[in-house]
């Protein structure tokens, strides 16, 4: 079996497992964690597009996540709009936010970009907090309804009241997001993103319009982050300004880096591991944060390329054999 076939098999197997999960697991706590993992994975996928593919560490994506969440929640709660168009508008809002934030911040690079994106994110969070007429400020938005029923030709209507239904929804969006990003990465645009990450000046010299492409990456990832925020708001049913805050961006970066920057599986692995693992530490509630901090340090020292990178290294190590001293023809 070739590596490619193995990969296909694994992907199909995992997808099958993912779909079968609600039938296998009835424990609502675990199902809930899987839903949260999927939502965070969508955010991580968006941030990986920025960090892993285009090489830009943005700390503003928590704000874009929040913008998406607030957009759809406010539309649904205040105007009674159906969830699905609201979700679409959340994506648009996230993308717009990416544009507005990207334009000024992308004039800088390196640590300047990081901090200026952080500041923008904080400005957005503070605005969410203060613009009470629009967002209810610190009161937050309560009783956000679940996704409206979706009419499907032939089957009838799918409702999303139950936990398994919500799980399938976020899983489907996650798969869609991964697929979308994959398509972008494999396209010319994606290669240009990659060129920017490797050596921006060289890319520019070769005719790649770095600024415009970086902005495009920001907008695309902003749209995906906005969708994640919208799903989060719908699922948790309560949204407040801290959900647009720095800690969301921080979590996103943790997921991406711990999982494996720049890889396809990395952000997903990172999101799942970092959502589920700290929960297992609840047995030692008082020391939970301590263990988490220690683990983070240890992981980043011994797995600089994240979990996925580490697994790859191990794979290569395991596969090398004495006979293979000459490359295959």
């Amino acid at each position, binding site marked *: 079996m070739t*590596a490619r076939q*193995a*990969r296909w098999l*694994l*992907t199909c197997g*995992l997808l099958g*497992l993912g779909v079968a999960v609600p039938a296998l*697991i009835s*424990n*609502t*706590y*675990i199902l*809930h*964690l*899987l839903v*949260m993992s999927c939502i965070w994975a969508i955010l991580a996928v968006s941030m990986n597009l920025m960090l892993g593919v285009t090489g830009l560490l943005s700390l503003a994506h928590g704000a874009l996540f929040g913008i998406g969440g607030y957009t759809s929640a406010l539309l649904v709660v205040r105007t009674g709009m159906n969830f699905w168009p609201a979700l679409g508008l959340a994506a648009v809002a996230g993308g717009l936010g990416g544009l507005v934030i990207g334009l000024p911040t992308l004039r800088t690079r390196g640590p300047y970009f990081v901090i200026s994106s952080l500041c923008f994110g904080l400005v957005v969070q503070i605005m969410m*907090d*203060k613009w*009470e007429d629009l967002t209810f*400020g*610190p*009161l*937050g938005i*309560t*009783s956000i309804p679940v996704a409206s029923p979706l009419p499907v030709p032939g089957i009838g209507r799918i409702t999303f009241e139950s936990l398994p239904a919500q799980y399938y929804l976020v899983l489907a969006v996650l798969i869609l997001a991964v697929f979308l990003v994959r398509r972008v990465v494999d396209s010319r645009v994606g290669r240009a993103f990659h060129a920017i990450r490797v050596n921006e000046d060289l890319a520019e010299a070769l005719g790649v319009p770095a600024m415009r492409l970086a902005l495009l990456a920001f907008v695309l990832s902003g749209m995906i982050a906005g969708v994640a925020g919208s799903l*989060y708001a719908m699922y*948790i*049913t*309560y*949204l*407040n300004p*801290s*959900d647009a805050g720095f*800690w969301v961006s921080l979590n996103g970066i943790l997921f991406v880096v711990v999982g*494996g920057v720049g*890889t*396809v*599986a*990395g952000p*997903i*692995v990172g999101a*799942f*591991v970092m959502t*589920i*693992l700290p*929960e*297992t530490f*609840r*047995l030692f*509630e*008082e020391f*939970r*944060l301590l263990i988490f901090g220690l683990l983070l340090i240890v992981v980043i020292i011994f797995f600089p390329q994240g*979990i*996925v990178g580490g*697994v*790859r290294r191990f*794979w290569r190590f395991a596969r090398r054999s004495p006979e293979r001293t000459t490359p295959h023809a």
Partner: protein
Amino acid sequence: MKCKCVAVILTLLAAITLAAPSGVAAADKVPFGVITPLSGGAAHYGTNFWRGVQMAAEEINKAGGVSVGGKKVELDPIVCDDEFKSDKSVNCGRRLASMNHVPMIMTPASLSAFPLMGFNEKMEFLLMATSQSPSFTEKGNKLVIRFINNVDRTMDGWLSLLLKQLERTGVPSKSVAIMEVNTQLGKEWVQAFEREWTKRNRVVVGKASYDANETDFNAQLTSLLSKKPDLILLTTVDEPSSLVIKQARQLGFKGTFVNSAASSGERMLELLPPEMVNGTLVELASWALNSPAKQEFERKYRAKYNNETPHLIAGVGYEGVRLYARALDKAGTATDAVKIRQAFPGAYDIPNTIFKMSKLDEKGDIDFPMYLGLLKDKKVLGISE
């Protein structure tokens, strides 16, 4: 892509760990959940609440436990740190409901409580929260109990009490400057206050908002003080409040401070010299009246926790558990949340409570009168009329 193996393996491992019964309830232990911030900016507040809960549970268990349906059972409070974040609160709630099968969850904060309302009826657990936020009981949720005051209901009476006291002591009170903490509770409290304040033809000369984790308020205070208010309204727990008081005094403010029930006053006395804090008036539950029950509670708390002063929220947690135990007794079940809720109104006949509370209505609100606490010469004097 092979690395998705890792995701699967880790998820399965985690699933096995999680599925393993954590703290399997012994036949005579009845669990209930406590979701509270034990880390992060609200750690002090959340820890106080948890300590109060633990103290009550231990005392009850030592005295033989609760009798439920003829059998004696022990209370088993299970704590979960939500880091004062809504999604972690949901994690905690889901975990407690599915893994520990708790029929009740208590929480001291609106931020933790509201997300839980999304699924507490579905998962059949009673939600007891100390949220002063009016909307907590306005959502039609049948399994919520508020065990503190609803600020909309108590503000009118309390404000009259406040103004009477100020008049009595000759303190000018025509204008107020508001330092509003940017939490849900802070906002709703100020909304209620402003409503009643302006009804009485008094003026709000300025409002500034701040984050409870901040430490420097000079910028806001200088601006507010330039409008020469008679009173400054604080709206948060003792520690940041005492910083506001200190900085305002250092900027030359000579007027009086007023604080909401988020503060219990005692800590402010410890952190500030008398000349800065004397005359401050705090909204207090009957905690202020320094009943024998409250003194007893304080004595026990200090003995257990290194002579630290308990925050009012510790007392609320303590009382909440005692109420719950009584409700279990009356309901005759420790697993049916609906029956427990129905039995709750009858649970208020406990003698010697720290707080005065009564008359639980169908929405989940109780009568929880609020009084004044006057900080003077290192003491909190309760004022009830």
